[in-house]
C-alpha cells in the first residue's frame, strides 16, 4: 500500500511568488492534516480536513495560506504571496482514525 506522498520534494521561489504544495493521502483516509516546521522551531499544526471539509484551520498563520481538498482526495496548500518567513518543511499526514501517517515533506525555500 502506498504511503502519503507529497510534491514537490523541494521548492525554491522568490519572495512575492506563489507556490502550491500537493499532498496525496493514503487511499481511504478521510482525515488529512498539514503541518510545518520553520527553521529551528517545532513542528506546528496548520489544519485538518475531514474529507473535503475543513475541520480545524486554527493553525493557519495568515490569509496568504489557502488549503483545499476538492473531492476529498488529494489536498493542495497554496502560499500567495510567499514571504521569507514561510521557508521551512511542510508535512502532510493522513489517518482513518487517530493514527496519523506522514509524508516525506516539502522543503520550501523563499529567497
Amino acid at each position, binding site marked *: 500500500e502506498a504511503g502519503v506522498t507529497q510534491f514537490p520534494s523541494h521548492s525554491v521561489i522568490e519572495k512575492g511568488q506563489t507556490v502550491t504544495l500537493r499532498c496525496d493521502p493514503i487511499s481511504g483516509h478521510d482525515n488529512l*492534516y498539514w503541518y510545518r516546521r520553520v527553521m529551528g522551531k*517545532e*513542528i506546528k499544526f496548520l489544519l485538518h480536513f475531514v474529507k473535503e471539509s475543513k475541520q480545524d484551520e486554527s493553525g493557519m498563520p495568515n490569509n496568504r495560506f489557502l488549503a483545499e481538498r476538492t473531492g476529498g482526495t488529494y489536498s493542495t496548500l497554496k502560499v500567495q504571496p510567499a514571504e521569507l518567513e514561510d521557508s521551512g518543511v511542510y508535512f502532510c499526514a493522513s489517518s482513518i482514525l487517530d493514527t496519523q501517517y506522514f*509524508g516525506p*515533506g516539502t522543503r520550501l525555500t523563499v529567497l
Partner: protein
Amino acid sequence: LAKTTQPISMDSYEGQEVNITCSHNNIATNDYITWYQQFPSQGPRFIIQGYKTKVTNEVASLFIPADRKSSTLSLPRVSLSDTAVYYCLVAFRGPASSYKLIFGSGTRLLVRP
C-alpha cells in the same frame, strides 16, 4: 497554555534500553498520545500510540500514568539505526470543543557503538 516538554537530547549505547518522557499537562481526555521517529530529510514515522496504562508493539513500549500528564516511550535494546529524533504528538482541548494537535519539541537520540 498547551505545551509539551521533552528532553532535547539523549545519549545511549547499543543494546541498552532507552526511555524518553514527554510531559503534557491539560491533555484532552479522549485523545491518544502518539510517538514518532524522524530521520533527516524524512517525515515522522509512526512508532506507537496509546491512551492509558501500557501499550507494547514489536518495536517499543509506551507507558502512560493514570493522570495522563506524561508519557514515556521505551525502546528496548537500541541499535545504531535508532539514532533519530523522537517526537510525542498529543491533542489539547480548548474552548468551544476545539482542540490543538501539538508536537513535542523532539528528543535527539544518539546511539553509540
